């Protein structure tokens, strides 16, 4: 190598003009083609796209804009990498390497081992088990003030504030719409007279009867007429109240187990709300409300289970089978609408003051989101991706735009509350590796 470097003669020659012209021509053609593709994609956004055989095309992968790092990342098969990463971390570590291995991991990522519930690190067979560790009882005391909104997880506050004109600010100057993050937030619930409906359901037999359903619908309509509710909240509900206020046809989560202790506490908390106002109805002039948001980032060394910030009722969940970009603060700064691209589980419900939503967003290393009370949920799975593709195709065949998510309701979890009750501080689920 040394002699080659020393003895090779370097000869400089001008690039032939034709080559330069050819290169510029090819580059120009590439740019035109790319522009045309982009224009076509914009035009076809709300239309059914058919392939050459006349069948609806599969959903196209969204290519985000951003610097070259983002562009390179968008070409990688991130979900496949994430699954591979998960499998790799489920491999058992040899017994005698576990303690030094986990201690090295803790040193690098700042894990406080004194808080870990299991003092003997040999118990964790692999990194995936250590990553999803539990903490000792009492190391995370809840704020004693009952009016506090608690932190749902260990992490860093990335952004917080109020939502103006239905847009959430990701970083300074970069915003995304609330509908893109959570899906269209129009009520799909049975209606406003929650208490009346709950009483009616209590009185009705266990079997779901059509007559009972009609009674509830009638109660809802009467409530709406009496109260003259416009069914819109500024900055949140852009559309009219759906006239056919039917219960959701999505399959409910049969695996959900109601927790009596949580339910009693949540009921007591909700009873404090102003005149038992349903979450979607406008507040009175005495207590005007607005929408607040907060984004919390969990670093690799943090405790990766998440908890309920307040006492609330989860009424439905929406699973967006998106991509799995990293959600590091760098990418949050450089990739606009990152949270609207990534795979996420949106939990929608109500609390004492109205609407409440909780959205765990997956990332490349932690693509699996687990919700304790939803055993049917499967994230970062090939099956759900295929199901999402199929749903997109079916929507296209019907000539409708694809909503982008699969929805399930928890109305069977509690007949009285119409959803799954969670008390403040209760563990809800967590992020798992891969």
């Amino acid at each position, binding site marked *: 190598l040394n002699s080659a470097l020393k003895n090779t003669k370097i000869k400089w020659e001008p690039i032939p003009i034709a080559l330069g012209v050819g290169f510029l021509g090819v580059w120009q053609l590439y740019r035109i083609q790319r522009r045309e593709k982009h224009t076509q994609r914009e035009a076809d956004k709300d239309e059914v796209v058919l392939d050459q055989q006349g069948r609806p095309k599969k959903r196209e992968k969204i290519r985000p804009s951003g610097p070259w790092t983002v562009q390179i990342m968008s070409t990688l098969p991130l979900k496949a990498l994430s699954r591979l990463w998960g499998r790799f971390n489920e491999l058992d570590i040899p017994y005698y390497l576990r303690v030094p291995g986990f201690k090295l991991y803790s040193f690098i990522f700042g894990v406080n081992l004194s808080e870990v519930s299991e003092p003997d690190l040999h118990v964790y067979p692999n990194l995936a088990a250590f990553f999803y560790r539990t903490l000792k009882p009492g190391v995370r005391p809840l704020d004693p003030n009952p009016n506090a909104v608690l932190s749902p997880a260990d992490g860093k*506050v990335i952004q*917080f504030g109020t939502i103006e004109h239905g847009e959430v600010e990701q970083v300074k100057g970069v915003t995304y719409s609330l509908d893109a993050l959570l899906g269209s937030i129009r009520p799909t619930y049975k209606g406003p007279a929650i208490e009346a409906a709950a009483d009616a359901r209590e009185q009705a037999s266990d079997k779901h009867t059509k007559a009972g359903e009609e009674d509830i619908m009638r109660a809802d309509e009467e409530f709406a007429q009496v109260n003259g509710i416009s069914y819109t909240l500024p900055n949140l509900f852009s559309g009219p109240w759906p006239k056919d206020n039917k219960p959701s046809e999505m399959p409910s989560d049969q695996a959900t187990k109601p927790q009596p202790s949580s339910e009693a506490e949540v009921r007591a908390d909700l009873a404090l709300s102003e005149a038992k106002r349903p979450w979607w109805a406008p507040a009175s002039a*005495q207590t005007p409300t607005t*929408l607040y948001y907060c984004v919390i980032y969990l670093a690799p060394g943090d405790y990766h289970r998440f908890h309920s910030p307040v006492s609330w009722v989860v009424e439905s969940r929406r699973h967006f089978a998106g991509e799995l970009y990293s959600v590091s603060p760098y990418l949050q700064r450089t990739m606009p609408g990152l949270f609207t691209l990534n795979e996420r589980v949106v939990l929608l419900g109500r609390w004492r003051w*109205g*609407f409440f939503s909780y959205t765990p967003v997956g990332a490349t290393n932690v693509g699996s989101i687990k919700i304790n009370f939803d055993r049917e949920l499967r994230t970062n799975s090939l099956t759900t991706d295929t199901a999402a593709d199929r749903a997109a195709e079916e929507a296209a065949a019907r000539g409708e735009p694809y909503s982008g998510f699969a929805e399930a309701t928890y109305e069977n979890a509690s007949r009285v509350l119409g959803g799954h009750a969670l008390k403040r501080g209760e563990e809800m689920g967590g992020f798992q590796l891969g």
Partner: protein
Amino acid sequence: STIVLVFEAPKGVRPSLDEGYKGERKGGFRWKIHQGKKVKVGEALGYV
């Protein structure tokens, strides 16, 4: 991984000038965090 909370909460009321209004709302939800703050489970993000 990231968690995004979006919730409705009281925004407080503006007291009248007689009550000493100085451009701030009275009551409502108040954040107790700042950007970049490290938080733990159970710690208050804000109070109503």
